[in-house]
């Protein structure tokens, strides 16, 4: 259903990129700006511009941030100007990109209090709610932390609860409801308001499948659907309203899934990238029938980046364009077209 319009285009960067994100208000609004967070030999965030009229894919580096205190573990764009960046050292940065003078300026930086204890606060993931007034991040040492974005103080509010296993992913489902994926393959739903109630409201897991959850993604319009990618390559879709068995896409990934995302226009489709460098397009369309159950669907999958053999660290979609970065310094750009 989705066809590759042209071959993936690629350029080589001079640093190892850990995350790539479009700078846009939403996934459907076209943009030509994107930012890349670097992982290893540099530790910063850079903003790039792509010339739409250009025939060749030659993005132009607009600006770079100063060196951050660790490698970038997650980037999320609030809108076309503001981005949040988390690092392996337990800090969250809030950057603002100015279109006028093409500069990236730091607005705030939050660090957790016990930043002296090394490595314990490796931030694995974060998310903010739709009002953008609260940001939640989860760490490797099992803590769930909240930041009030509009408050004057730079305090980090840590939930007095330790999951005892590393938390790999977090998502806001509703205004106050978060889903947390951990390294035992469970997804726990928390109510962010009731911080004294030290118990998750619901725990979802796939029986017989306990490999760590690496990444999660929201359904674009059904907030209760959550897609999870596991370390052993299973892609499953949970309905967080009930603790039913999840819908399992397939075992096509032989190796860990690195990131997963619902397609912004056609939510029957998912895209995932994996450790072995493949970029799968999952087509679970119900062929015109209105089926709400995922169980009744057939799934077709197609690898869109067969030429790549190196771990895809991250990818992001914007309108009909997809960017992906691999572990071998390469930035890919794909365009695809909806054939409906």
């Amino acid at each position, binding site marked *: 259903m989705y066809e590759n319009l042209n071959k993936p285009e690629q350029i*080589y960067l001079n*640093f190892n990129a850990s995350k790539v994100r479009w700078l846009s208000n939403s996934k459907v609004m076209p943009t030509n700006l994107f930012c890349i967070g670097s992982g290893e030999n540099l530790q910063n965030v850079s903003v790039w511009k792509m010339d739409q009229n250009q025939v060749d894919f030659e993005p132009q580096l607009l600006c770079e941030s100063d060196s951050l205190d660790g490698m970038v573990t997650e980037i999320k764009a609030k809108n076309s100007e503001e981005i949040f960046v988390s690092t392996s050292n337990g800090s969250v940065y809030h950057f603002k990109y100015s279109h006028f003078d093409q500069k990236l300026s730091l607005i705030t930086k939050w660090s957790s209090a016990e930043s002296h204890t090394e490595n314990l606060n490796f931030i694995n993931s974060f998310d903010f709610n739709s009002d953008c007034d609260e940001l939640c991040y989860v760490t490797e040492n099992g803590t769930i932390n909240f930041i009030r974005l509009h408050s004057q103080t730079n305090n980090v509010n840590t939930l007095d609860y330790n999951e005892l296993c590393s938390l790999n992913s977090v998502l806001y489902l509703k205004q106050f409801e978060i889903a947390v994926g951990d390294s*035992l393959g*469970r997804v726990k739903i928390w109510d962010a308001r009731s911080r004294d109630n030290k118990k998750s409201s619901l725990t979802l897991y796939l*029986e*017989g*499948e306990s490999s760590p959850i690496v990444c999660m993604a929201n359904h674009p319009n059904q907030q209760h659907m959550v897609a999870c990618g596991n370390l052993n390559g299973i892609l499953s879709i949970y309905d967080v309203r009930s603790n039913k068995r999840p819908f399992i896409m397939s075992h096509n990934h032989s190796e*860990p899934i690195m990131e997963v995302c619902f397609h912004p226009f056609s939510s029957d489709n998912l895209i995932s990238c994996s450790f072995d460098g493949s970029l799968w397009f999952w087509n679970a369309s119900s062929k015109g029938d209105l089926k709400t159950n995922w169980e009744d669907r057939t799934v077709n999958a197609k690898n869109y980046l067969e030429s790549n053999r190196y771990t895809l660290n991250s990818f992001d979609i914007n309108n009909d364009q997809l960017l992906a970065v691999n572990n*071998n*310094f390469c930035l890919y750009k794909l365009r695809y077209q909806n054939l409906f």
Partner: protein
Amino acid sequence: MNQIPELQNYKIFNDPSWRRVISQFREIFNDLHLNLEKNSIQETIKPENVNLSDLCSEANQKYINIIDNELKLIDSKSENQEHFRLLLKVWKLCQIIFIKSSPSGILLNDLQEWYRSTNNIDPMIQDLFSNYNHNVDNLHTDQNYWLLIIMAVAQGRIDTARHLMSFHPSKNSPVFRSMDEILRTMPNFSSNSHLTLFEFKAKWEYWQKRCIQILTNENFQIEETGSLEIICKLLCADENTFLELKPIFNSWYYMLISYLSYANPSFNISDLHIHLDSGICMKVFENELDEFDAIILKIFDFDVDVIVNDCVRLFSNNFFSAHLLDILFLNGKLQMNKNDLTMFKSDKNSIAIHEEHLIEYAVQILSAAWSNSSLSLNQTAFDYLLKCSNLDRTGLELIETYLEKISLTNLSESNANKVFYLAFQNGLHDLAFSIGRVMQMRAFKRGMYGTALSWNVRIKDCSFGNYLAEKIIEDFFKSKDLKLLELTESLTKEIIYCDRLIFLSKYREFYKLAYYSNKTDMSTKLDNFKQAGTLLLQLLEVQNLIPFKFRKRVLFHIPDLIQENVFNEDQLFAILRIIQNYENKKDFLTKNELKNEQDEIEIDNDDVSEEMKWKFFYEKISQMIAENFVKNKIEL
């Protein structure tokens, strides 16, 4: 040898623009080897061999293009500029001499091309034209004007020379005309011309005779600088003129190529050697020869061993030598080495040489990756190491040694996962296992039981699993924190390797059924209790599933369930039997003074002694069982 400068020289592996080159090279290298593997599998017809050398030269061209591109990308002030330029120069020449050429093939066009690209005069020409933007008539007054024309002729760029000459005011004078004519008619030998080599030689001889005629007949006086005469002498291949023009060439090899292109345009490699041995060009530059000149000389001499060793010294890394030797080896050219041919194990030897360089390169990468623990650099090195299997110490062994040394103490969980997969991918299962063990221990020490469990399940380490399960359940008995038990909720069939984990998981099931059933409905609640009771009995009946130290603690759940009247007659008998078993075991342990097994987990931290509690328990349970028997009888 001094170690410190050695280490500093590996900085190319941390330099951003070098890293870009290195990662692209890695990709080409891998592609090449993958293609060759595919080819060798399909090996059916002979023509594949042709394909092989095509693949190699294609890969080599790609290597060169990558460096070329990088040169364009970096700004001119960068210190890498010079480094890349030298590299490109050597590499292109190696390509011409080792890969493209055949013993009788004509080298002129390739070498001229090399000369032009490595000593490009285009920027100078552009400068010249931009200086006289509005007034091309005065072009000839520029001091570089004639210099450029002579350089163009020396490089064989006849069209450029003629174009420049056409701006001279006296271009219509007879001497200019005849020079232009002679330049225009210069025979050109290229692969797509129709001339055979013999015809070309004849034509060339005729043409050169005409040059000599012009030199003797024409009156060069009208052009006061005498440059036209010099050009004409160049065309006649006048040795002394070439030697006098030393500053233009600035290197002996350029002079040699330029000289040969007029003295013997159809020269091949053996001709080249003859000219080298005569050493005319070398003599002029005698005092200025450096390391790099020696390398060029060795390339013309076909001495691969010396070239690669010299290059390693010049660039202080094995980046170039590893890739070049790999290409040459795959192309089957490495056996051409004179020394190897005389040796008995020539074939074996050449394998070792190119792999030695690959390993050396990989080790250099690894030593750079060491300092900043960058995994992608490690993976690059592993790719190279994996291709080395013919040495005493294979690449895989080196990978294993290296991965063993990766410090796990400061590694993040997600990176540890990557290392684990790397080891697993390469078939190093023992190593993956040991990584898992270290990680579970690390997590355990931090109190991250869940993470430890997740690693444990992945590597299926039974003994640590037992220990971990006991620790979790002990902590649970102390803190009554349900999340400890819940750690096992997603585990089912994957924990069958470990008894204690099974116990832990079953105990959680029981505990949830008995105490945390949130059903309000009375009948379902009773059902849950019944299930819990059955489960508990099953657990207790299996010998040795529950460690002795937890047995009493588990037995204490029985009164709660009996109260709900969930056991039938058989089950009540079973309970009695279980209690009896427990007491027997305890007696046995006290008799034999097996202290460490005897330690039991305390039930609650209150003042009542353990003995008293047991007594109460005993009384309570006997009374309840009696009541139950009666109730059951009545109900029946």
